[in-house]
């Protein structure tokens, strides 16, 4: 049974990869077949992932590694493999499930796209890579899948490569994640150097097992940092690059250039979560430094700064997708806070819940854009509630889950768990306070967006006669909405099944948990935050201006600050000047150097060669040819003369034979006489 279990586990990531490979060979005209193939492959791997989930639920086999020796040189064997434990099983199930519905959604959304097959090829490639990241048991395999995921996101962001902005956005995304990957790579090498293995769990001597951990903690490097701390910091930078944390976040809003399903799948649900997942997976290394260790505090503070920053910027965005992008960044900040304050389970729960409702929001935004024939500016929209009732309904569920409306929505419980863990973090109340304000701002900008898009009258010259999206787009919305709601069941403090399952505890149900004063207080706090946010937003945006180019009501209040927030606090300008300008200067210098010094040098060498070429040709002509031809003609003449003797008459030949024979005989006798 173990044998084919490993095979099935390997199939989960490999099937979408295989589908991606096959689609790569299909010509673009066969789009229909490509999409069907991609969906079928993903459906099968989804079934397998759910099966694996069920299998992990059964007691006793929490951690089932599927080892594979990649190659062995000498006695050193490099082993990679897949790992099935609650965290990876949950993630795999989430990725496959969400991706499956996004695929179905994009059947409708990308319907009139002429490079239909290519789109699905990249998507299935991405899913395969993402599953590999999630299920991998070796840091090396994770890193490889990590790169593949980065590649897929580059290709998908730059899907409309004719648009220069899309191409530039893809490049920007790739380069900034590349910086993060560099740090990740250094950390990985360092870990391998010290522990000698990259496998997380390898029957005792895995990276995350006690033996290796203790050796990592023991060794200290420059600045008194323990190796584990230093390595974990590097891993954190890698995660920040991929998950768009503050210094390396600029690529995520620009990534909205890609088609909406791409944004939904990659820049909302899965890829950006990879960084969080990495930190969660290697959490034991982070935790070596203790709760208030350098690595965990750094994670927490990075998370909180990002959450606050992104929430503030989201307020001043006018593009429907950029608002959601910044909200994703801030939610990722939330997850980092959870990881920093020790709540791996809370972070994982928030990650999965966020995947569902953020994908839902993006898809409904997509459906809105589709309905408004490609219009993305919310100032031009308005009153779409009447025109697109179903989209509005699903969008509302997603908005409420994100904002954290109480009790019914999974967002509320996951945010509450994070606040809980932040509150009890021994390292100080800072992150808790920032998290709370960020939650308030989240509620604020979400209601702003809802009001501007769906309520009030349609603005002139706004979008003319928007139409509802077809069923193939609405069904996925419905399913994801159901998911966002149902997930709350497993996250409530009464029955914290998910948390216990991740941490490996008993999953009993006790309603008494509500009664605990701490949880009550926290729930109350969350309620206050949500109502405050929604209320403020309602007051400002109750009667939105009916001109599409009218200034935003908040702009009147904030004035200059609004424009500053609009440009993402000027990070882009900062990078432009701080990073790109000096590099351009250095490149110009080298180019000048090359022109002035190198070109004349080459000219000199060239003339030298030409001159000696002339000399060799001369010698060749006169000396060799002349001599050789002379000899040949001489031979020719002598051959002609000797051929005269071949008269063709047999008797002539016979005469010469006769003479030859007699001469031989005479010679023979003469010799025999003489000796």
């Amino acid at each position, binding site marked *: 049974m173990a044998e084919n279990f490993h095979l099935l586990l390997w199939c989960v990531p490999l099937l979408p990869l295989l589908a991606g490979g096959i689609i790569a060979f299909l010509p673009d005209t066969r789009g229909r077949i490509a999409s069907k193939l991609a969906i079928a492959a993903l459906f099968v791997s989804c079934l397998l992932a759910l099966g694996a989930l069920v299998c992990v639920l059964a007691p006793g086999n929490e951690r089932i590694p599927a080892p594979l020796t990649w190659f062995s040189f000498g006695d050193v064997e490099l082993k990679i493999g897949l790992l099935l434990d609650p965290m990876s099983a949950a993630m795999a199930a989430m990725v496959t499930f969400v991706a499956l519905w996004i695929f179905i959604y994009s059947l409708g959304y990308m319907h009139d796209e002429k490079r239909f097959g290519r789109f699905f090829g990249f998507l299935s490639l991405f899913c395969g890579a993402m599953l590999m990241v999630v299920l991998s048991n070796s840091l090396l395999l994770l890193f490889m899948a990590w790169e593949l995921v980065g590649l897929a996101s580059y290709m998908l962001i730059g899907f409309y490569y004719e648009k220069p902005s899309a191409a530039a956005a893809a490049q920007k995304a790739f380069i900034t994640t590349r910086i993060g990957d560099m740090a990740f790579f250094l950390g990985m090498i360092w870990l391998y150097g010290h522990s000698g293995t990259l496998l997380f769990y390898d029957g005792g001597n895995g990276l995350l097992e006690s033996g290796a951990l203790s050796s990592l903690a023991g060794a200290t490097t420059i600045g008194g940092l323990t190796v584990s701390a230093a390595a974990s910091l590097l891993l954190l930078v890698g995660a920040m690059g991929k998950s768009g944390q503050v210094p390396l976040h600029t690529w995520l809003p620009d990534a909205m250039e890609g088609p909406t399903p791409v944004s939904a799948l990659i820049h909302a649900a899965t890829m950006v979560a990879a960084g969080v997942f990495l930190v969660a997976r290697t959490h034991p290394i982070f935790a070596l430094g203790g709760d208030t260790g350098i690595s965990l505090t750094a994670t927490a503070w990075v998370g909180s700064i990002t959450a606050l920053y992104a929430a503030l910027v989201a307020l001043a965005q006018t593009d429907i997708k950029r608002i959601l992008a910044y909200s994703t960044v801030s939610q990722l900040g939330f997850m980092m806070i959870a990881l920093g304050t020790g709540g791996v389970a809370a972070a994982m729960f928030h990650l999965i819940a966020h995947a569902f409702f953020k994908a839902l929001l993006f898809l409904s935004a997509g459906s809105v854009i589709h309905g408004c024939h490609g219009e993305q500016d919310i100032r031009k929209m308005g009153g779409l509630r009447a025109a697109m009732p179903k989209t509005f309904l699903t969008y509302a569920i997603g908005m409420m889950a994100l904002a954290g409306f109480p009790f019914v929505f999974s967002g509320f419980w996951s945010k509450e768990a994070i606040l809980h863990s932040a509150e009890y973090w021994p390292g100080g109340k800072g992150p808790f306070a920032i998290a709370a304000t960020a939650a308030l701002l989240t509620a604020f900008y979400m209601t702003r967006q809802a009001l501007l898009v769906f309520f009030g009258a349609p603005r002139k010259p706004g979008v003319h006669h928007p139409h509802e999206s077809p069923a193939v787009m609405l069904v996925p919305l419905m399913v994801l909405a159901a998911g966002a709601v149902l997930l709350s069941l497993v996250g409530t403090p009464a029955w914290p099944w998910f948390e216990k399952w991740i941490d490996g505890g008993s999953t009993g149900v006790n309603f008494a948990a509500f009664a605990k004063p701490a949880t009550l207080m926290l729930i109350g706090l969350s309620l206050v935050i949500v109502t405050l946010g929604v209320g403020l937003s309602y007051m400002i945006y109750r009667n939105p201006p009916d001109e599409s180019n009218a200034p935003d009501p908040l702009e009147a209040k904030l004035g200059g600050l609004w424009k500053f927030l609009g440009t993402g606090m000027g990070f882009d300008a900062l990078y432009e000047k701080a990073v790109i300008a000096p590099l351009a200067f250095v490149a110009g210098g080298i180019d000048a150097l090359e022109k002035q010094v190198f070109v004349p040098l080459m000219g000199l060498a060239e003339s030298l060669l030409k001159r000696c070429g002339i000399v060799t040709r001369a010698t060749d002509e006169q000396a060799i040819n002349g001599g050789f031809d002379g000899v040949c003609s001489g031979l020719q003449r002598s051959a002609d003369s000797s051929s005269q003797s071949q008269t063709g008459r047999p008797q002539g030949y016979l*005469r010469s034979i*006769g*003479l030859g*024979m*007699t001469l031989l*005989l005479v010679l023979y*006798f003469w010799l025999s006489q003489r000796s």
Partner: protein
Amino acid sequence: MIPLLILSPLILLAAIGAVWMARPVHAALMLALTLALVAVLYLALGAEFIGLVQFAVYVGAVAVLIVFSLLITRPGDEAEEIERRPRSLVTGLLCTLPVMAVLAYTAASGSNIKLIPWQPKLSIAELGEVLFTSHAPAVLALAVLLTAVLIGAALFAREPDKTQDDSSEK
């Protein structure tokens, strides 16, 4: 010993005739005569079987063959032959005389074998036995050769059938 003395000059005369005669058919007939005389010489030397075989094969078959082909090719031009003779003779003799001289020299000098009675006995029983035991492969090879020659010669000399004939004639 006496028959040798009688036969040798006769053979030489016949051979010279075969070489010298102007008309080709005469030369061929003189060849037949020489071969017959040589066969008689074999009989005189005691090798009856060889003599009779020589007589049957050469005089009976080869001479007839040569004469027959002369009949077919009908060479006529004796006059030119006679006219051309002195010139060709010189070059011919130039080549054959040294050969003859060398051979005669070897024959005369080398033979210091004592005179022995010249009545040796060749019994065909022994000849047959030797032929078909130690020389059996040679006989088989000879048989194959002769059949090949039979078929080959027939093939070469065959009149091309009518269809090609006209084309080659035109």
